[in-house]
């Protein structure tokens, strides 16, 4: 009987040598005359174990990792193809605590299947949501999404169903679905993992969105930094067209939906939805004034749904199992699951999908195992470069949109970057201002000029110059950015800056008592 071995094609796994491991296995099997097939799956999201090798056995898939090309011959000698013992053996993949404790809805298939196999996708409950949607009225599809309580996973957490309803009720001959795949936040990689590990779920989610609101054209706006995702998405889209899951007359329903991937060009601000649309229209990514809302006048002036990858990839399970099923996960007004990403200085980095309500402490220590360097965790930044730095005293906050907002922090796209006590938070605050200066689109003055002035003030503070004056100046500048910027780039840069100042004043050269 042929042996099936899985080695991820996920770009992070490849960055650690997964392609070389896959090639070494194929070669070794050939040399030993073993009938073996290597399937390139997505990543299970346990990145400290990548490249993670799995072998199919009667008991389930057995994992080995992290595997180097040099380990392959030894693995064959030990009989890994029968799931036998080896120093890299980890046991059954799905029994590993990091994986087993999760509630994977959106990521149900990632790591299990060959991302480019439509047959695999369908065998693992794929396209059931679309089939249900094809038998429903547009209003009922929107209602299912509204009932699920799904909120925008890009960061703003706006209820997806309400957005869709606005587009549905705005009449136009042409409407658009845009997938915002400009995942620029440091510490986030869930969009990338979905696109590389289960592209059909995104295609299905966008198709359902198109049916729901009456849009026939979709665009995935993908960042240029994700070349692997670009190739995988394009291959999956081509297959979907061939098998009538995209195009005119989808599955002989008489409905049509077209989908194209467009590449960004290295501008962080294009993750802001109006800037993204300008970019798609072939212009500089300048942020637009709102209103009008994109749902009423968006891409090329037409009603447009703009949703994040994870929001759209969560739609198929909602249409498959019902809004109620999804809504039963989570807490408070944060329903369903959130794919969290543990990154930076953490022992067990990776993807953790759980219902809302887990605390940061559980995430950092029960899943993450503490810092990688073994030093105390000083702070975590949740929600990307515009998210606040969170000190240890707030680690018991549940991961919930409202609980985070109450602390003047944001959950954003669910990225968590961990810093140990060797980091200087004044340096991080300076970097936040620098990043804003580099990425500002330049349309509004507070962001364009304030960020550069902020960098200069931070330089003075770091040099210990006239702290009484400069810290007051920094706070005043942050106030201007916060209240006077056109979009979240300028408007939220004060989150990391002020949280660093408020929680770690000693790094700014002042004591906790003399809060200025």
């Amino acid at each position, binding site marked *: 009987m042929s042996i099936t071995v899985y080695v991820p094609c996920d*770009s*992070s796994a*490849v*960055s*650690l040598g997964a392609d070389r491991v896959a090639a070494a296995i194929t070669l070794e099997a050939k040399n030993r005359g073993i009938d073996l097939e290597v399937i390139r799956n997505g990543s299970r999201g346990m*990145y*400290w174990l*990548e490249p993670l090798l799995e072998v199919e056995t009667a008991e389930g898939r057995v994992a080995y990792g992290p595997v180097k090309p040099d380990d392959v011959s030894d693995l064959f000698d030990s009989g890994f193809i029968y799931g036998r013992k080896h120093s890299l053996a980890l046991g059954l993949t799905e029994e590993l605590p990091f994986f087993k404790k999760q509630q994977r809805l959106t990521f149900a298939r990632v790591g299990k299947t060959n991302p480019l196999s439509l047959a695999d996708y369908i065998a693992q409950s794929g396209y059931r949501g679309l089939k249900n949607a094809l038998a429903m009225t547009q209003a009922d599809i929107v209602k299912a999404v509204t009932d699920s309580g799904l909120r925008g996973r890009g960061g703003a957490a706006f209820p997806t169903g309400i957005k869709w309803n606005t587009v549905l009720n705005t009449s136009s001959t042409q409407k658009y679905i845009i997938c915002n795949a400009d*995942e*620029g*936040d*440091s*510490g*986030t*990689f869930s*969009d*990338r993992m979905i696109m590389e590990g289960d592209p059909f779920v995104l295609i299905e989610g966008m198709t359902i969105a198109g049916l729901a609101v009456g849009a026939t054209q979709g665009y995935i706006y993908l960042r*240029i*930094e*994700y*070349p*692997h995702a670009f190739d995988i998405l394009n291959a999956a889209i081509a297959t979907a067209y061939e098998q009538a899951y995209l195009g005119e007359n989808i599955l002989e329903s008489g409905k049509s939906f077209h989908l194209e991937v*467009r*590449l*960004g*060009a*290295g*501008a*962080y601000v294009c993750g802001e939805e109006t800037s993204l649309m300008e*970019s*798609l*229209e*072939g*212009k*500089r*990514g300048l942020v637009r004034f709102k209103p009008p809302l994109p749902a009423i006048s968006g891409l*090329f002036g037409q009603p447009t749904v703009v949703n994040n990858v994870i929001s759209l990839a969560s739609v198929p399970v909602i249409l498959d199992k019902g809004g109620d099923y999804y809504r039963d996960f989570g807490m408070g007004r944060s329903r369903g699951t959130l794919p969290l*990403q*543990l*990154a*930076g*200085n953490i022992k067990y*980095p*990776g993807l953790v999908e759980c219902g809302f309500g887990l605390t940061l402490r559980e995430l950092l220590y029960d899943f993450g195992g503490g810092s*990688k360097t073994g030093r105390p965790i000083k702070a975590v*930044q949740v929600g990307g*470069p515009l998210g606040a730095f969170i000190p240890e005293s707030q680690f018991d906050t549940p991961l919930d949109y409202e609980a985070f907002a109450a602390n003047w922090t944001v959950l954003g796209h669910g*990225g968590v*970057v*961990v*810093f*140990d006590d060797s*980091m200087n938070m004044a340096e*991080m605050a300076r*970097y936040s201002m620098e*990043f804003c200066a*580099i*990425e500002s*689109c330049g349309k509004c003055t507070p962001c364009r000029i304030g960020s550069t002035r902020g960098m200069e003030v931070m330089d003075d503070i770091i040099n210990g110059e006239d702290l009484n004056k400069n810290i007051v100046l920094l706070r005043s500048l942050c106030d201007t950015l916060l209240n006077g910027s056109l979009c979240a780039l300028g408007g939220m840069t004060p989150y990391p800056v002020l949280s660093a100042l408020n929680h770690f004043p000693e790094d700014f050269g002042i004591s906790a008592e003399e809060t200025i």
Partner: protein
Amino acid sequence: MTDSSTIKAVVQKITTELKDKPGALLPILHGIQDTLGYIPAESVQDIAKALNLSRAEVHGVISFYHYFRDTPPGNHTIHLCRAESCQSMGSKHLEKHVKAKLGINYHETTANGQFSLEPVYCLGNCACSPAMQIDKELYGHMTDESFDEIINELGVSA
């Protein structure tokens, strides 16, 4: 530098192929940069004409996006991540080493034309920080030593 007739031919082929797409400018610029490695200043006029835009509009778009460049890159472009996750794992130290090893700063190319160095703000490899990308290859858990090894493998050390 690419000669003028080649540039003209490439630009003409790409603009003809893509100009009727909605929002065609970015796909056209990508097409040109993928083929030539950069977007020559002299191509702006032809692009503008094909899309019925002003030269200023085309130049404005090229200069807005960090990824587009108007000078030829080295044989390999190194994108080194400067973002928070990589900083938490020592990327500032790595950055110093990379610059010293190559003898160049960001946005520069080594004298032998082998490597260009560009900053990047997140490669989505944050679970394996610090990260970098050379051409389309992604690397994780970078150290000074692994950087030297990769650079040496790519041929002439700079």
